[in-house]
C-alpha cells in the first residue's frame, strides 16, 4: 500500500464511515498490541525487549501491561 494523495480522487466512503474506520483501526491496534504483548511475555520476553520492539520505554510498557500480566 503506497502513500498517495487522494485529494483529487473521489472516495466512495462517506465521512462518518471513514472517520469511524480511523478510530476503529486505533482500537484494533490496541487489541493487537495487548494480544502480542501477552504472547511475548508467555514466550519469556522481558519488558525491556517488548518496550524496544514497540518503540517505548520499559517503564511505560510495564505500567500499562504489568498488572494484567498476573492473570495471563
Amino acid at each position, binding site marked *: 500500500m503506497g502513500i498517495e494523495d487522494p485529494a483529487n480522487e473521489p472516495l466512495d*466512503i462517506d465521512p*462518518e*464511515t*471513514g*472517520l*469511524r*474506520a480511523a*478510530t*476503529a*483501526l*486505533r*482500537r*484494533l*491496534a*490496541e*487489541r*493487537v*498490541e*495487548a*494480544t502480542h504483548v*501477552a504472547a511475548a511475555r508467555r514466550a519469556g520476553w522481558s519488558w525491556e525487549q517488548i518496550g524496544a520492539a514497540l518503540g517505548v520505554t520499559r517503564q511505560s510498557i510495564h505500567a*500499562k*501491561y504489568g498488572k*494484567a500480566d498476573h492473570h495471563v
Partner: protein
Amino acid sequence: MFERFTRQCRDAVTLALAEAGRRGDRKVGTGHLLYGTLHDPEAARALGAGAEDVRRIEDRLDRDALAAVGVDLQDFGPLAPAVGALHLPLTPGAKTALKRALGHAVQEKSRTIGTRHLLSALRECAGTEPAAVILDRLHGREGS
C-alpha cells in the same frame, strides 16, 4: 460534582472507564458512559436496552467501518481486549454530558445525581456524538 453522585452513577462512570480501556479508546466518551449507565437495571428499563446492546452496536459499527476501508477483522484471529491506562481523560462530549446531568439534578431539586439524570443528559447528545449514534441505532432510526 462526583461526591454528589449516587453509588449507581459512580459505578456507571467506573464501568465507562473500564469499557474505554477494554475497547482500546484513549478517552472516555459518551458511548462508554451510556454503556456504564445501562448497567443500572432502572436505566436499562427506562431505555428498553442494556449495556450488551451498546457493545453489540459499537462492534458492528467498527466491523462495518473497517470492512469499508478493506480491513477484515476475521483475518486477525482471536484478539485479547485492549488494556487501557489507569486514568483516561473524558472527551469534551462526555464532560458536557456530566455537566448536563448535574443540571438535571439541580432542576429537579435533587441533592444527588443519579443514572436517571445521566441517561437524560446522554439522550440529549446529537449528531456524531457517540451516544447519539448508538441511540439512533438502538431505536432503528438508521437501519440495522
